[in-house]
């Protein structure tokens, strides 16, 4: 494949498109926490299961609640799951990976064997296991999803840091007599970010997917919250009569996932040295 190095000042079009979409969703989600056309939790049984109309663009659900309002009010939950989980796995995974790269021996063994173990659990199961024994809720879902991606980040960080430790500029810092912490902070950490950001950008999509799947199974935010996965689960009983109750949050979820995916791919195009200019790596 002949990939030409992109001019540095131009954003890749995927990043631009995905970023615009995502920004739109984030703004709608933040506004939707406080302001929605109707109250997303108040029942109005006389207008239950109404098809989309001018008054209710996405129709109403089995309790007569406005689906558009519920979708807006629940948008921040999916975003919080995806980005919150990523933040947790970053906060836990990156330090552990750096420690494992620096301390050869017992510390590294303990960290890396635990990572092997966690990776050996299929992702949904790890989430199920944590949520099975404690009452479900938004923060537990975020923590469970975050835990799933910790081992991947530990491995990645360690691999990148181990490679960097061999580089001349790190050797030079050692020769200057700098201690472990300054080397870690000034030499290693700044150079580990590009691959980690690329990985996170691609993982956020999976984190949102996993979080909404867990909510769909009833292991996320509880009613009357309008998490999109939960809304789809609730609307299933009326699928034939009122498909819009499921389709509206489902399509919104797809748009969110596509935009996050586009941003992830865009970041990769921009930051991955393997893609932008072959000789560089």
């Amino acid at each position, binding site marked *: 494949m002949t990939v030409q190095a992109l001019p540095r000042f131009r954003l890749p079009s995927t990043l631009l498109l995905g970023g615009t979409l995502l920004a739109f969703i984030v703004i709608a989600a933040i506004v939707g926490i406080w302001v929605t056309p109707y109250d997303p939790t108040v029942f109005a049984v006389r207008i239950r299961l109404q098809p989309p109309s001018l008054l209710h663009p996405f129709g109403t659900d089995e309790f007569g609640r406005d689906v558009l309002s519920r979708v807006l009010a629940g948008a921040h939950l999916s975003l919080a799951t995806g980005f919150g989980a990523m933040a947790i796995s970053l906060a836990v995974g990156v330090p552990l990976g750096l420690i494992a790269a620096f301390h050869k021996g017992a510390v590294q063994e303990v960290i890396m064997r635990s990572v092997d173990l966690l990776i050996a659990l299929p992702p949904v199961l790890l989430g199920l296991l944590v949520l099975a*024994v*404690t009452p479900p809720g938004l923060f537990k879902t975020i923590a469970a999803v975050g835990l799933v991606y910790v081992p991947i980040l530990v491995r990645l960080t360690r691999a990148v840091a181990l490679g960097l430790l061999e580089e001349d500029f790190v050797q030079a810092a050692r020769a200057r007599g700098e201690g472990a912490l300054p080397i870690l902070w000034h030499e290693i950490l700044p150079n580990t970010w590009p691959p980690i950001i690329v990985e996170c950008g691609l993982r956020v999509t999976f984190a949102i997917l996993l979080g909404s799947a867990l909510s769909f199974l009833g292991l996320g935010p509880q009613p009357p919250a309008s998490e999109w996965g939960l809304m789809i689960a609730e609307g299933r009983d009326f699928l034939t009569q009122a498909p819009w109750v499921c389709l509206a949050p489902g399509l919104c979820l797809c748009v969110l996932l596509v935009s996050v995916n586009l941003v992830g791919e865009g970041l990769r195009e921009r930051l991955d040295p393997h893609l932008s200019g072959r000789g560089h790596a």
Partner: protein
Amino acid sequence: MPIATFLLQRLAGLVGVLLGMSLLIFGIIHILPGNVAYAILGEFATPAAVAQLEAKLGLKDPLPLQYWHWLDGMLHGDFGQSIVMNRPAVELIGDALGRSALLAGFSFLLVAGGGIALGLHAATHRGRASDRILGLAQFALLAIPEFFWAIVVVLLFASVLNLLPATGYAPMSEGLANWAAHLVLPVIVLSVGLVAHVSRLTRSSMIEVLDSRYVLAARARGYAERRVLWRHALPNALMPAITVLAIDAGLLIGGIVVVETVFAYPGLGRLLVFAIERHDLPLLQVGMMVVTAIYALANFAAEILYAVLNPRIRVTGSTA
């Protein structure tokens, strides 16, 4: 490293992972806050009933002893009792496992076959219309959650077209066509995302191989294109696909939990969700153990296959 040593080493790793997993599963279930007996009996249970149940389940023993009993029982074929269904867990899991294996098996065939074939097609038709359409479709399919797919598919095929049953499972004794009809929708939903994943990866690794110098050399020698593709390029291009198929086995297991719930398909995934909802901890514990063991075996098989195909791995002893 001779292949026997390699095998033994990996086997020891497998046993280690399984042991660690049993500790992890037992630990999470028993150490996290929440009284098991109250969880089973409900919060208004009398203290006497709670004490009786705790004695019956052996919950009064120290945790290491409980763990040992559980592990020892499993090694001797005693997988415990489901509390809610009051049946041996092994029967419940065995039945469910067979039905899940059907779903997983058909899906895996579809993913491996379809994914690799589509990837190869895209790689050899790079830049043409079919490649572009596949690329777009892959991108879209990867971003659609399984449960949403399931709902769209049910709406289309079961409600609107009235072609296929929306939920459930029919044993083969009720007719082959009926049996197959119940499998079609779950298998499609389970496979779609993974087909996209595998084909995308096969495409990129095949393109990388096709652009390499040894393929250029093979073409320069005047080998037929068919021979270059199948004998020279494909074996190397499939390496990453095999690793990804092992990873996808994990996604497949996760997908099965969701798909079985949506389609009310009586498999292992649905049994696990049932065990969680009803706090049937002995059943949950064993079910989790069985699923992780299957996943560990899939990874083990992938490592072995990888080593057979790529002798360099055996020498360095790492798959990194």
